C-alpha cells in the first residue's frame, strides 16, 4: 500500500553532513518533497518533507533514520501561542529552528510568525509555562 507522510527530520550535528536523503531514495524507493530545510555542517539540522512510497519501505526507512540518530516527528498542523499565558521569557526563541519565534525589539516581547513556523513543536516542550499549544 502506498503511503504519504509529512514529517520533520531532526539531524544531530554529527549526521548533518551525511547524505541521508539519498539513502531514502536509493535504498527505500521513497519519493521526497522538501518543504523546508535548515542544515549546517556543525549545527543540528532540520528538514520538513513529504515522503511517499510503499508502507513497508517507509517503515524500513524510519528504522534506518532512527539508527542514524535522526529523530522523526509527524508534522503538526499548527502551533499557537497563548498570549495570556506567555511571560516573554524567550525559552522558545532559543530552540526555534525556523526563526518563527522572535523578539520584537526593543520591547523584548516574543512574537510568533505563523508563516515561518514549520510546526516542529520544539517550543511546546521548551516553554516553561506551557504557553505554546499544538493544534491538529
Amino acid at each position: 500500500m502506498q503511503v504519504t507522510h509529512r514529517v520533520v527530520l531532526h539531524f544531530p550535528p554529527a549526521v548533518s553532513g551525511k547524505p541521508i536523503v539519498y539513502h531514502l531514495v536509493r535504498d527505500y524507493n521513497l519519493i521526497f518533497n522538501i518543504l523546508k530545510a535548515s542544515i549546517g555542517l556543525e549545527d543540528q539540522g532540520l528538514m520538513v518533507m513529504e515522503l511517499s512510497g510503499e508502507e513497508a519501505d517507509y517503515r524500513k526507512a524510519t528504522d534506518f533514520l532512527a539508527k542514524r540518530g535522526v529523530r522523526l516527528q509527524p508534522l503538526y498542523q499548527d502551533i499557537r501561542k497563548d498570549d495570556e499565558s506567555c511571560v516573554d521569557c524567550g525559552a522558545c526563541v532559543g530552540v526555534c529552528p525556523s526563526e518563527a519565534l522572535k523578539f520584537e525589539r526593543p520591547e523584548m516581547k516574543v512574537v510568533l510568525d505563523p508563516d515561518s513556523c514549520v510546526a516542529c513543536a520544539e517550543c511546546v516542550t521548551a516553554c516553561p509555562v506551557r504557553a505554546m499549544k499544538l493544534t491538529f
Partner: protein
Amino acid sequence: MTKTLEEINEKIRRGKVVVVTAEEMVEVVREQGAAKAAQRVDVVTTGTFGAMCSSGVMMNLGHSRPRIKLGGGRVTLNGVPAYAGLAAADIYLGATAIPDEDPRNAVYPGEFRYGGGHVIEDLVAGRQVLLEAATYGTDCYPRRQLATWITLEELNEVYLFNPRNGYQNYNIAVNRSDRTIYTYMGTLQANLGSANYCSAGQLSPLFNDPFYRATGIGTRIFLGGGIGYVAWQGTQHSPGAKRTDKGLPMGGAGTLAVIGDLKQMSVRHLRGASLRGYGTSLMVGLGIPIPVLDEEVAAQTGVSDAEILAPIVDYSEAYPSREPEVMGHVSYAQLKSGSIEVEGKTVPTTPLSSYPRAREIAELVKEWIGSGTLELTAPVAPIPGADSGVAVRPMPDHPPSGTAAE
C-alpha cells in the same frame, strides 16, 4: 544635595514624590548628569521576573479534628511532597519538589510537567489543592491519615519565603559540546549554537544598588505581586565578587532572601515553571525601590546595559565539573542585541528572564509609590557588603573512609 528617607516618605504622603524606573533613570542621568538627577528624582524603581529555584512557601494548614501531627510524617500537595519536619500543622513546599511518580529524566529530556512551583501557582490562583498526609499517632495527635481539599484563603499564615532570589548578575550559558543539553539555563544548542542569559540587566534590583545601601534586612519590596520584605542576605551571597570600575559585579555576587504574604500575590507575578530536562521551578517577580538620597545613588541607578558585564560559561563541561573557567565577558547591551561573539562565532542570545515583566514590575512599584500605597524603608541591618570577606564556598569534601567518589 542629599535627602533623607523621611523627606522622601513625606513627599510620598503629600503626593509630591518623583519616581522613575531604572530604565528611565538611564536617560535622566545621561541627559542631566547625576547631580541634577539626584535633585529631580526621589525614587528609582527596579524589577526582575524569572525562574528562581530557591523559592518556596511556608504554610500553616490549621488543625484537623481529631488532630494529626504532620511534623515527622509525610505530606503531599497535589502529589508533590512538602517538607514536614516542623510542628504539627506547619509545612514548607519548595518550588523544585516533584511527585515521586514523576519519571524525571528517565525519558530524557524529562518534561517535569508539575511540581512545587505549580502547586504554589495553583494556590495563588485560588484553585483547590489536594492535601494528603500519613504519619504516626501520639496521645495528643491520634490521627494517622488525612486527605482534604484546601484553598489558600482557608489557611492560616501562608508566606513565600525564598532563600535565594534577585541574583546580582549571572552567567551566560553556552554549550561547547556536540549535543544539545538541557539545563536550568534552558535548552542549549550544540557547538555554541545558543547563549542564554537571565538577568534583567539595567532594570535588575542589585545592579542599581551595587553596594546594598538601600537593600538590607527589612527593606520593603515588591514580591510576586504583593508587598514583601528582604529577610536576610540570600544563600550563596558573595558580595566580594570581582567588580568593574563602577563597582558592578562581573559575575554572580549578592543575593537576597525574601519573604511576603502569599495571599497578596498574583499569578501574573508568580508562575510555576517546567524546565525541560532539569526540573520544576517558580518564576518570581521581584522589585525594589531605591531612594535617591544623593548624587552617588543617582549615578548608580543611572547604570545602563552597556556598562554591565556578564561572564560566558560552558554548561557542557566547565559548569557541571565546577571548573572556574570563564570564556569571556560581554555586556547586557550586546546580549539584548540578539547575538554575541564567542570564540569567533556569532551566537544567538536568549534572555530567559522576562524583560517586559521586569519593566511592568518597575512601573507597578512606581505607581504604588506615586499613589502613596508604598512607602520606603531603611534597612534594619545591612547585609554583608563588598569588603565583608563573605564569599560563597564549595561543598566540603571529606567523604567518610571507605566511600569512593562517584
